[in-house]
């Protein structure tokens, strides 16, 4: 369960999150929609522990534990995963090497033994087959020269392998062709259940056809300004954000 209470965060003098409150229960898929620049990615970064933001008020609990003082790696080891809106290129580090380092770091943090190479390879092969990630991509430097869609698939592959308790997906649908969208959504749906929660940030109703949300929230100017069921996404698709923009300012 992810609980965000009255979260205020700023970069320098600029306040971006202005008292955001949102709870996503175990097993729930919550969607956030909102205009460009409303602070959706900022929210995902602050929750996952990126440095450079000053949290001036509020709390974030992951499964009852306040995570705001933890560095990003500790939050990850506690089961938080962020699929980036813009996945980062890591030149010189093969995808395989990176995946292994990530999985073993989390295991180490949880006091589990390192994966044996065959076990690791098996997991990677199973997951990448399911997500249609070619083996030769795993030997290339992570995200370097990957197409937009390939990068997004790679995010979902990482999420699958790291098996988080809570996933934040920041516009994972953007840049995907129709087939890829289905594959990625299936990847996410496969992880639903077992009490895993998701926060899905998107601009398009289309993704929500594949990943059916339990709740939909409208974010504007750093706050949640409206919450509702799946029907809210349809309403936004039809009318846009004009009803909410004035309200937030």
């Amino acid at each position: 369960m992810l609980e965000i209470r009255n979260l205020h965060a700023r970069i320098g003098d600029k306040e971006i999150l202005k008292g955001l409150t949102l709870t996503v229960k175990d097993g729930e898929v919550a969607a956030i929609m909102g205009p460009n620049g409303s602070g959706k990615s900022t929210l995902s970064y602050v929750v996952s522990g990126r440095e450079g933001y000053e949290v001036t008020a509020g709390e974030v609990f992951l499964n009852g534990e306040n995570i705001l003082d933890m560095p990003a790696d500790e939050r990850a080891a506690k089961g938080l995963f962020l699929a980036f809106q813009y996945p980062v290129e890591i030149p010189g580090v093969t995808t395989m090497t990176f995946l292994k380092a990530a999985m073993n770091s989390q295991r180490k943090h949880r006091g589990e033994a390192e994966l044996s190479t065959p076990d690791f390879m098996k997991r990677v092969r199973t997951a990448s087959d399911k997500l249609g990630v070619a083996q030769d991509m795993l030997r290339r430097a992570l995200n370097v020269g990957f197409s937009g869609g390939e990068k997004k698939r790679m995010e979902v592959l990482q999420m699958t392998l790291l098996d988080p308790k809570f996933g934040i997906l920041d516009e994972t649908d953007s840049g995907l062709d129709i087939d890829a969208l289905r594959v990625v959504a299936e990847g996410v749906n496969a992880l639903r259940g077992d009490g895993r929660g998701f926060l899905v940030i998107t601009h398009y109703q289309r993704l929500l056809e594949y990943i059916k949300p339990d709740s939909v929230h409208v974010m504007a100017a750093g706050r949640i300004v409206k919450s509702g069921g799946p029907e809210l996404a349809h309403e936004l698709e039809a009318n846009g954000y004009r009803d909410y923009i004035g309200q937030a300012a």
Partner: protein
Amino acid sequence: MSATVTRIKSEAEASLESAFAVARESLPGQAKVQALRDEAAALFACNGLPTRRVEAWHYTDLRAAMRTMLPLAQPPGKALIAKAGAALAPAAEGQVRAVLIDGYFIDELSVGLITSDITMRPLDVTLAEGDRVAIEILSTPNLGRGDAALALNTAFMQGGVEIDVEPGYHAALPVELIQINSADKPSAIFSRSMVRAGAGSKFTLLERHISLGTEAVQKNDALVLFTSGRSQVEHVFVRERAPDSQTHVHSLLLNVWEDVKLNSFALVEGGGLLRRQIFARFESERAELSLSGSTLLRGKDHADTTLVVDHANPHNSSREYFKHIVDGSATGVFQGKIIVAPHAQKTEGMMKSQTILTGVDAAMYNKPELEIFADDVTCGHGATVGALDPVQLFYAMSRGLPRADAETLLLEAFAGDAIDRVADESLRDMLIARVRSWLQRRAMS
């Protein structure tokens, strides 16, 4: 010149001059070699140790770093030779290995003195015999002229080794040149070695510099690498971490002849002060020269890489690619000068220096220079200095890597990028392993 500048000699400079006067008679070599020594000593007497006022030494003040001269190193005794031998892994079957201790060639530890394809002998023998061609090559009349530190090496040179690879010979295993500093008492080392690649030969030369003790050492060594036409040489230089008490000037002198492929890579692990200067000259046409390296500095290390690549002839290409990681309050220097002579058309020269500063008080000085006198050339240079990318760091941490591990992963990739230029796979693995263990030590401190 209208004005004479009178310098006051430092204690070290005065000692070096009088040490030369004393040693002159006993240093190896006949009249021709002695003339070279005298000429070099005269140049040194005139210039003294390089200071910041010498343009090529602007960021490394050798005079300030060498206040006094340490006693000249003596040939090592049996116990020392045994100790050094124990520190070395046994040579592989068929491997050729030359070992120097404190600059002196050590017969007992060297392997494959004379095979049918590679000949190795103490340089003192070459100097004493005075073979005209060998002495001419050794004196590198076209390289590093006027450099006072190199002149000092010429004046005092003794010890060292000559390795000759026969024309057309392709060596399966790297030829090793291992230079061990005993550092068991304060000492000054001046040695010069020479490797001659016969026409059409192909081999890898692994040059390692190792320190055993921690006593102060002033080391000034030079390697002349003479590549005859169509030879293909890969030179891998490893300067293992030295004690902070070490002051080391290393000159690499490269003659590049027609159709040569010469690839020289250096891993520098810091420690004390290191000035590595490479003087390269294209003597003919259609050669490819690659100079690259990864330099890892921490603590108060100072490491200076200075290149002078002289495109004295047309139709040659050079690539220079250097990576530096500067941690703690260390200082890195990269100076690269590419000279293109007026008739050296169709020259290609691309020089790059990239630095990641990880220390709060770390500093990096870059000075790339192009002196182009021909018009049909493709030359360029670029230098970047920055911190680790915070976005990459966050990305790795968000996947569960602790900060130190994330830094190590990114830094290894950064340094490894230059190591990728080494063709020999087992040497590449060795280099990456060394980088990894350097980074692990960094992460623990």
